[in-house]
């Protein structure tokens, strides 16, 4: 979808800024808010570019730099931590050869952390894009990532 059609879905009202930015980000093949995305959003809502940038930088669900095709969000809240999220994180870093916030060389995965996903019963948990995975172990993570690689 082009940016123009995304904007047209919403009334030009400042209360829609978060929805518009989510849509623009999802629509961007690099899954981030580019300079152009921020520009069209600000122009549409008639607010300064610095304002939209400020809002986008505040919320962790928006990214201001390009990301991979798939976004992994590993939960870092206390229940997951107690169930081994830290060693899973180390495992993911090693397997993907990236740091938190980094994107794999092939552009396939970006590794991020998140606060509680509300899945404490199946801790440690993570999301891959919109999908939830629980009771994670390194083996399970390998299988999930391998499956995803095959799909694309």
């Amino acid at each position, binding site marked *: 979808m082009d940016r123009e059609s995304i904007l047209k879905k919403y009334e030009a009202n400042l209360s829609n800024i978060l929805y518009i930015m989510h849509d623009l980000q999802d629509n961007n093949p690099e899954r981030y808010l580019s300079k152009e995305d921020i*520009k069209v959003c600000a122009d549409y809502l008639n607010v*300064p*570019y610095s304002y939209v940038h400020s809002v986008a930088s*505040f919320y962790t669900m928006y990214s201001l730099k390009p990301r991979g095709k798939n976004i992994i969000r590993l939960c870092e809240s206390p229940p997951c931590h107690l169930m081994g999220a830290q060693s899973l994180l180390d495992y993911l870093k090693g397997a993907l050869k990236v740091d938190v916030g980094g994107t794999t060389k092939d552009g396939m995965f970006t590794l991020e952390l998140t606060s509680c996903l509300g899945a404490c019963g199946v801790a440690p948990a993570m999301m891959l894009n919109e999908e939830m995975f629980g009771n994670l172990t390194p083996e399970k993570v390998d299988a999930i990532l391998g499956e995803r690689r095959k799909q694309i």
Partner: protein
Amino acid sequence: MIKATINNVDIEVPEGTNILWAAKKAGFTIPTLCNHPDLEPGGQCGICVVEIEGIPGLKRACMTPIGEGFKVRTHTPRVMATRKQLVELILSNHDTDCLTCVKNNNCELQQLAATLGINVLDYPKFEEKLPIDHTSVSIVRDPNKCILCGRCIQVCSKVQTVNALAVNHRGCDTLITTAFDAGLGNSVCINCGQCVVHCPVGALYERSAAEEVWEAIHDPDKFVVVQEAPAVRVMLGEEFGMPTGSLVSGKMHAALRRLGFDAVLETNFTADLTIMEEGTELISRLTSGKNLPLITSCSPGWIKFMETFYHDMIPHMSTAKSPQQMFGALAKTYYAQVKGIDPAKIVSVSIMPCTAKKFECQRPEMNASGYQDVDYVLTTREIGRMMREAGLDIKEMPDEPPDDILGEYTGAATIFGATGGVMEAAVRSAYRLVTGKELEDVEIKPVRGLKGIKEAEIDIEGTKVKVAVAHSCGQARELLDKVQDQIAKDGKSEYQFIEVMACPGGCVGGGGQSWGSNMAKRARRGESLYEEDRSLPLRRSHENPSVLAIYEKFLEKPNSEKAHKLLHTHYYKRSAVDGKILPG
């Protein structure tokens, strides 16, 4: 009226007064870091906390209106311990190399730490050096010094409506920066420097040219000329502890001469020249009826603002350069010719109350002389420091005149430094240009002073000229929106002539003024300029003998071909994303 007590002192204040001001009335100054007399309180720093009997917890004095019967205590053990802790926390995250900081001895945080008796830092230092923003030719931003008080953002967004700066990221990573983190030089920043003069610490300051100027002064092969803006003569005294607004024109000339400049000349001379060029332009537009209102072009912050946000108004802009740039073009042509100096050897320095002038002198089109017309711009603060470094005290200087042939000035030139001054000076001469007669009462009071947008109707022997004056880009925006609406609706505006200065109060409130300024000081400086105007024998630009001489010997007449080549300019459309010139 509300009756209350502050530390057992009875007070009576109007409803809505906050505790900070109520306490001041009772004789107690509550310390604060984010509050500024000219800005709205924001409650960011929390230093101004007080205790109120019967109300749990501490309250921020700046954000709390005083209520009937309040019993406020401003320095209980709990209050004092909290304040100290807050400042210690700020210091733990602050680059405290005060000795090498541009704000050393002028820093509100430094003063506060001393006032609260903080001698030991109990918290471990949070040492993460962030890169300093050197992208702007006018302003440097050091995030390691920033205390996130938000004054810069408020003045940039509310007063100037530029919105270059905003809060970005969150928590420990919070940073005040520009859109896309691109740096001030790659943003809509207009270089006005109001953020600089409102910053309580050393996070924002001008990009200094002092080293380059010292080098030129000490180079025997260079001939260094200096010009001083109208407003500098009522500011420089403050750098040496003189009362606000002290008029030091003569002392300033003497000190600059002793500092080592080869010729001490005057921006005021070219201010008079500006009036001749702009006044003639006004008459020709009034005659043709085209591109009215004419809008003044002396303020480089305003020019960049217009180029970025109102470039549809470019045809309305006066093409006359600012006095600084007229001086620059003449110093390396007319002056060099008459004095027999190779223009390649002339270094042209200007002393300005302004940070945007640093940007203006580096604009690529400002080379009418075949060289960069003005080489270096120093703010009032920089020249004050250089004078102190050279062991000069402005208070001890004799009164000396400027040098010829770019030094003579009238009262009309000196009032350029106050809001409404350019308008008043232009009317004094336009009257003569239209009628051939002199305006008897040269003082046009309705355009003076610091109230908002000022308007007046001038009667030039039956021709009514409606004028308006805006000082601050926020006011300019309001006025231009009105003008654009009128033009769209009726094909013309009610105004024929508009003066805009980027800074509140005009140049006396510029981004290059002494630290710790406020509107009251700006007003006082403006009054001093009107006092100098009254004291001068000549008060109309067209009476300046050196101006008459330059037209006779060099420029022929106002708006001549030669005058156009040297003294007039053109404007660009700029992007509202990064402030850069747009193609086409």
